[in-house]
């Protein structure tokens, strides 16, 4: 059974329907890419998985999203617990205006996940798992805003890892980065894949082809096609998918 399952998912911003009858199954400990032209609803879909859309007024959702078999939109579902379990990395790196150390410690503190004495060790481990520790070891207490963009994005990933999520949602995590930095983040994703279920939204088809195991192609709020990345890119089943990946529109 998939880690995340969407069933007959419709999503509305007020009267505008942004997602139309989405059905998909995201496998555990794999990287799933969502591709499609601008405005097709990729971010909207991603933000349904951790209920970040709840922050927007006038939204409406029909259908179900199951994570580990449980409908996350059930009335009694614990939003804070959901967001701890399903982490998110954003398009523009957005570390808090705190020190590097505090950025990581934040999640540990709000979820009471560690004793005070254990926090420094966990912070180091998290930074280490995104290969940032060696670069910042001597300035953990300086502002995170002074890091380079790529370092900031890795810090944001580390911040997400700190609360021990099971799923990591990434919304165009590399679109603010240069090619070299992009490559580094992609390498990191490959390492994280062993332990986490990753869903990445990307504009960049090469990136989807490079990093993902499975790919979904969206168009105008519909999930046109979903399957093994290799299949989608070598023999797409739908004419529209083929047009998109061969660059004929979008």
């Amino acid at each position, binding site marked *: 059974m998939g880690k995340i399952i969407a069933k007959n998912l419709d999503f509305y911003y007020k009267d505008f329907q942004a997602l139309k009858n989405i059905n998909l199954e995201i496998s555990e400990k794999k990287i799933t890419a969502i591709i499609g032209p601008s405005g097709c609803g990729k971010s909207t879909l991603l933000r349904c998985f951790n209920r970040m859309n709840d922050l927007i007024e006038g939204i409406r959702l029909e259908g179900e999203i199951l994570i580990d078999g449980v409908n996350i939109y059930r009335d009694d579902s614990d939003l804070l*617990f959901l967001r701890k379990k399903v982490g998110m990395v954003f398009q523009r790196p*957005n570390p*808090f205006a705190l020190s590097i150390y505090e950025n990581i410690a*934040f999640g540990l503190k709000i979820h009471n996940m560690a004793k005070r004495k254990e926090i420094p060790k966990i912070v180091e481990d998290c930074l280490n798992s995104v290969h940032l520790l060696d670069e910042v070891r001597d300035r953990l207490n300086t502002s995170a805003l002074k890091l380079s963009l790529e370092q900031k994005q890795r810090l944001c990933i580390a911040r*997400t890892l700190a609360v021990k999520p099971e799923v990591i949602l990434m919304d165009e995590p590399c679109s603010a980065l240069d090619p070299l930095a992009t490559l580094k983040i992609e390498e990191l994703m490959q390492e994280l894949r062993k332990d986490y279920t990753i869903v990445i939204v990307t504009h960049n088809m090469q990136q989807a082809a490079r990093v993902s195991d499975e790919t979904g192609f969206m168009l105008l709020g519909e999930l046109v096609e979903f399957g093994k990345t290799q299949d989608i890119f070598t023999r797409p089943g739908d004419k529209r998918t083929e047009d998109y990946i061969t660059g004929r529109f979008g």
Partner: protein
Amino acid sequence: MNLKKIREFIIERLIFLGGMASIIFVILIFAFLLKEGLPFFRIYPLKDFLGGRFWYPISEPVQFGIKPLILGSLIVTGGAILIVVPLGLATAIFIAEIARGKTKEILKCSIEFLETTPSVVIGFIGLVVLAPFIRKVFSLPTGLTALCGSIMLAIMSTPTVVSIMEDAITAVPKVYKEAALAIGATHWQTIWRVILPAASSGIMAAVMLGIGRCIGETMVVLMVTGNAAVIPKTLLQPVRTLTATIASEMGEVVQGSEHYFALFALGIILFSLSFIVNLIADFFIHKGVK
């Protein structure tokens, strides 16, 4: 074409002059204060002025010790800040982060209304409502005390403090909030641990500008603090501030007398105080921009 250029040139110059005018005014005011105030120290030692414990401008012999006046200003301002900062911060957080729709509009409106309330009205309310209340509660001979001044000043500086704090909180990029919520923080944890630290320099600027507003305020303190030039020991006794001294004595003083110059010397002190406070506020504002 040429005409256009000339017009452009004239407009630019006018705007430049407008901008310069405020700087020139500040310099002129300070120069005037120095010119009228500095001669005082030729006839009265600076040490006695700053360190003297008594302000007896018309007794014999005269004494111009400003210690009670400075401490009066500081205690009233300090009390006001202790009240207005927590209340103002709470209000600013409520307006920026929690209130929605009508509630928010009404709140913002009433704070703007408070901003435009003449200080004499606020002083009047302090005089007839708060002072008797304080007198009764603490069984004092008079309710016209530093505490009364502090409370009224706190009310008066609320709009300044709240609006700057609210701006600072609102200016925190939304992505910080999103990031915090996405890790599973509650709204309050997000405000306390992420938004307020990010807004801290703006909040400090608001505090400093609030202090500046309180130190400089005249009418309210003149009306409600009792105006006794004694060194204050508690908030529950009458005090007299720098501003109230100048305002109440300037009317009767003989021009060119020692007392006249002494009041200008007070003006120099007051001007310097608010200048420093504003400078610190400015420091925080620019720190926030970076």
